[in-house]
């Protein structure tokens, strides 16, 4: 750009902004004399150099006008012998196999390919034909940068952390060596949560809740109290693990919630020991499980056995091998219930009701009935 053109451009600008105040303000520092001079000097030198060349060629030969585009002009190829800059080798190439990794990677950091000494591959390849079907390596691999890494949490790191905080620790209390012992001395398991934020508030609504877990067998309860306790806590009792989980989050503070659970636990315990008047009105349908002694099955069997006894008495003259040999003379209820056959029958029926109707239980029931009625068959029962 020559000086004149600069000038004309500026004048244009000035024309546009001439009347306005801002135009003047902006134009002033731009129009310093030194600036203009520099521009002029540079352009002049270039033109001179160019002129010199022309003069030289003119003296040697007659210049033939070449119509541009008619003949192919061979361009002089620039020799690009740019000297390569020295590229530092990645750091992992100089690493020793027995180096201290905790010093290389002291804290959490984004993945850096040049520092990690082992080969890693990560990423998706759309077709198996691309790149030989192998996911990209670690160099410039954004996938590896995106994911969290745990290179700062190696066993060495952990050991160092432990060493560092060891001075703050007290020795493990004696007598709590095993889990069983821990459980024995501390049957309650209290779970609370704290939340950390980098935001403006340090509060979190979830932090107020408290949970207490314990095994029901740790409480001192009899059959009635245990049953009542289970009914009172409802779904908070896990039958398979025998654990009760009580959670509270109504109160605003964690401490208050915890206190409430402890209060609740106390109340539950004492409530389950009390026997209310209305509990005597419990019917068979309200039972937590099947009790053979209370149900019709017992009545049926006793009646049946008594019936059979009278029949056999009548047939005394013709003794039958298929009669029931185990029946005692005195058919009181205690005598009948004490019979081995009746006991096994009772057990089988109770299992059918309380456990599932599995093949084993059905088989057990079948065998119990067979022995009870003394049906001696030649065939073994099919499994």
């Amino acid at each position: 750009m020559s000086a004149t053109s600069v000038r004309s451009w500026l004048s244009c600008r000035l024309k546009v902004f001439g009347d306005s105040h801002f135009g003047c303000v902006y134009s002033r520092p731009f129009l310093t004399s030194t600036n203009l001079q520099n521009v002029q000097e540079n352009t002049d030198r270039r033109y001179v150099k160019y002129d010199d060349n022309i003069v030289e060629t003119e003296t040697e030969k007659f210049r033939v006008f070449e119509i541009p585009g008619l003949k192919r002009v061979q361009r002089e190829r620039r020799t690009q012998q740019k000297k390569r800059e020295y590229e530092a080798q990645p750091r992992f190439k100089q690493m020793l196999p027995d180096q201290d990794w905790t010093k290389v990677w002291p804290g959490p950091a984004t993945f850096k390919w040049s520092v990690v000494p082992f080969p890693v591959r990560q990423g998706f390849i759309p077709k198996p034909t691309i790149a030989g079907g192998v996911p990209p390596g670690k160099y410039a691999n954004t996938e590896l940068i995106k994911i969290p890494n745990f290179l700062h949490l190696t066993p060495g790191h952990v050991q160092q952390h432990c060493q560092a905080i060891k001075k703050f620790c007290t020795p493990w209390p004696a007598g709590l060596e095993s889990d069983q012992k821990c459980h024995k001395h501390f049957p309650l398991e209290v779970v609370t949560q704290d939340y950390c934020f980098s935001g403006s508030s340090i509060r979190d609504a979830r932090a107020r809740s408290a949970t207490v877990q314990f095994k029901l067998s740790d409480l001192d309860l009899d059959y009635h109290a245990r049953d009542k306790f289970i009914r009172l806590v409802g779904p908070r009792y896990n039958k398979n693990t025998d654990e009760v989980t009580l959670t509270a989050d109504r109160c605003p503070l964690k401490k208050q919630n915890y206190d409430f659970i402890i209060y609740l636990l106390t109340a539950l315990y004492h409530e389950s020991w009390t026997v209310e008047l209305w509990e005597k009105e419990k019917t068979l349908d309200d039972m937590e499980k099947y009790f053979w002694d209370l149900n019709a099955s017992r009545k049926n069997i006793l009646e049946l056995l008594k019936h059979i006894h009278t029949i056999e008495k009548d047939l005394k003259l013709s003794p039958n091998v298929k009669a029931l040999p185990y029946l005692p003379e005195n058919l009181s209820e205690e005598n009948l219930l004490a019979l081995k056959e009746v006991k096994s029958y009772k057990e089988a029926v109770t299992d059918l009701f309380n456990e599932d109707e599995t093949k084993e239980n059905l088989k057990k029931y079948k065998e119990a009935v067979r022995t009870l009625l003394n049906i001696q068959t030649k065939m073994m029962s099919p499994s």
Partner: protein
Amino acid sequence: MYLAVKVKSDLFHKWSLLDYKVLAAQWRQSSRLLCSITHQPDCSSAFSETSAVSLPAFQQSNHMNTLSEQYKIEAQREHINIRSIFCTDESDPTKHTMAHEGLFYRVPDNVFNSHQATGLRKDFQKMLKAFHEVCIMIRKPALEVFDILENVNFDHPPAKIILYGKDGCGKSITLAHVVHYCYQKNWLIVDIPWAGHWLNRQVEIAQSTHNQDRMNFPFVATAWLQLFKSRNLQLIKDLTTTKTYVWSKRETTEEGTPLQELIDFGLNRQRFADDCIGALLREIRIRASEKRIKVLVSINGLNAFWQNTTQREVDKQLIPAAKLTIVHNFKKMFLPTWNNGIFVGTVDTTANSFSQREKVTPLYLLGKEGFEFMDPFIPIEVSNYTEKEVHSCLEYYIERMWIQNPRGRSDDGKKELIFLSNKHPYELTRICASW
């Protein structure tokens, strides 16, 4: 590719544990996979190694071969009628023993038509028509029932045997076999071919004349009386009533009337048919206790007695079966008030309402009330075919020309049929039907 094969072999391994329907579906699916796998040129080197695992399970196992081969060899060697291998000439079920297990026996047509046909599935009866004969397989549950029948003390109150098992496993046919056994022994057969049928029909209902709380099903009652009459006319010929029954002011049945007349009265006076059944059953109980007759009470779909009918009362509540006079009368047969009889019945999911068909076990199907009413009973499971039974069944189908596909008659075809049906009897008939 290797992975695919690996996964499949795991799948085959699991097959043995799964239900037959799932199996069939999975088999169909993976056999597709199989075509594509074994065809892949890349895996041709691995082909020879993987072929062992990738073949369907039914084509792998060699032990299945043995029995069918045995059939073939015997048939070729002795030049005998192959029928003798899977069929026994012993058509008297009282003589059936464990030696006959898994073999078919021919049921005389008259016995089948009079005593067995009513309770069986329609498609089974259709199949029998195509077979041009009635053959029932002698299976272990039936033999077990016979064994109990022989060893039970008939001086005691009637023992109860309940057959249970998955749908289509042959409970009804086992019961039919038992009925034939008792027919052969000249017992009186008090039979309900399908109790569920009583509840699901929309027929006329009426209030009982005897007890205001109960409901009568006059059409059902007369139909049953007719059935009973047609079956047992010979046996009840000499029996008479022990009591005078007063039906109304003008209609009475005097003491000493033959039972046949009692039945005829019920058939003529539909209004009293339900109560007539009660009277008839009472007489049967008394006569049985007097050792004049032996009685088999057989009820197919017993659990229907503790279900609701499909009809509604005036207050729009479904009528429970317990309220029906016939059900009430039949329930008396299970009480220990009489002897010289036995009860053999089945519990079936299809006799229950749709919401209660999850399990096939007796306690679940009968419910607590039903179980306590029936106990103590002897549960006998009717399960899928055994190895021997399924082979003899297939041979029978082939002999009866029911499997027409020539490849289906080959060993491969048999193996596939066994595999697809998982030895489930009904499923096997369904699959064979289109072969």
